[in-house]
């Protein structure tokens, strides 16, 4: 079956512009996670959606970052007024539920470059 998909695969933008990154989770997966992966760094947690519960936004680095999940499926991560330090690979993952032992399936990521 189809895995997690993300679009675009690459995004180059100018400093100060807004960008939207899209994640299509695996059908039926109720939990969705966004991470940021910078060069030489691990995966930095950004935000977590579980079903209809309020999202855990504790990882968002600033108020320029926001995310929404429509209809419990597709999610969009928005970065406003992009800065050069926002350049990274943004990864999305989904899992069947938010329980402890459910495997996260990752998408291929969106590589964001801010010039």
């Amino acid at each position, binding site marked *: 079956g189809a895995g997690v998909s993300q679009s675009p695969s690459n995004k180059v933008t100018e400093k100060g512009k807004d960008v939207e990154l899209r994640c299509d989770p695996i059908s039926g997966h109720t939990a969705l996670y966004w991470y940021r992966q910078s060069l030489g760094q691990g995966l930095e947690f950004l935000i977590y959606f579980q079903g209809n519960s309020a999202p855990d936004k504790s990882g968002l680095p600033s108020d320029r970052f926001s995310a929404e999940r429509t209809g419990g499926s597709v999610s969009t991560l928005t970065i406003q007024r992009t800065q050069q330090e926002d350049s990274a690979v943004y990864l999305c993952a989904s899992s069947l539920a938010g329980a402890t032992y459910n*495997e996260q399936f*990752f998408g291929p990521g969106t590589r964001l470059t801010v010039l």
Partner: protein
Amino acid sequence: QQQVKQSPQSLIVQKGGISIINCAYENTAFDYFPWYQQFPGKGPALLIAIRPDVSEKKEGRFTISFNKSAKQFSLHIMDSQPGDSATYFCAASKRGNQFYFGTGTSLTVIP
């Protein structure tokens, strides 16, 4: 504050050798410890995971050793192969609500 510390940053192993990657954590509330494998241009993929009620889990050539009292866990890759060359991440989670990842280990297996 790095919740999960991973070492080494890079590792070079001869084909057939044993690759060992170590991780340490602080939060005793963590109850799930997965390892992920990532190839260039791909997202991470779950390799093997362990819960703190067991000290070791083995799947094929991959073994996790878990030391609850020391708050450490490690990945052992037996009979390492060139196809194992990838970046490996350890992680820890509390009830699956938020995952904390290590900084990754770049493994190169030399033929």
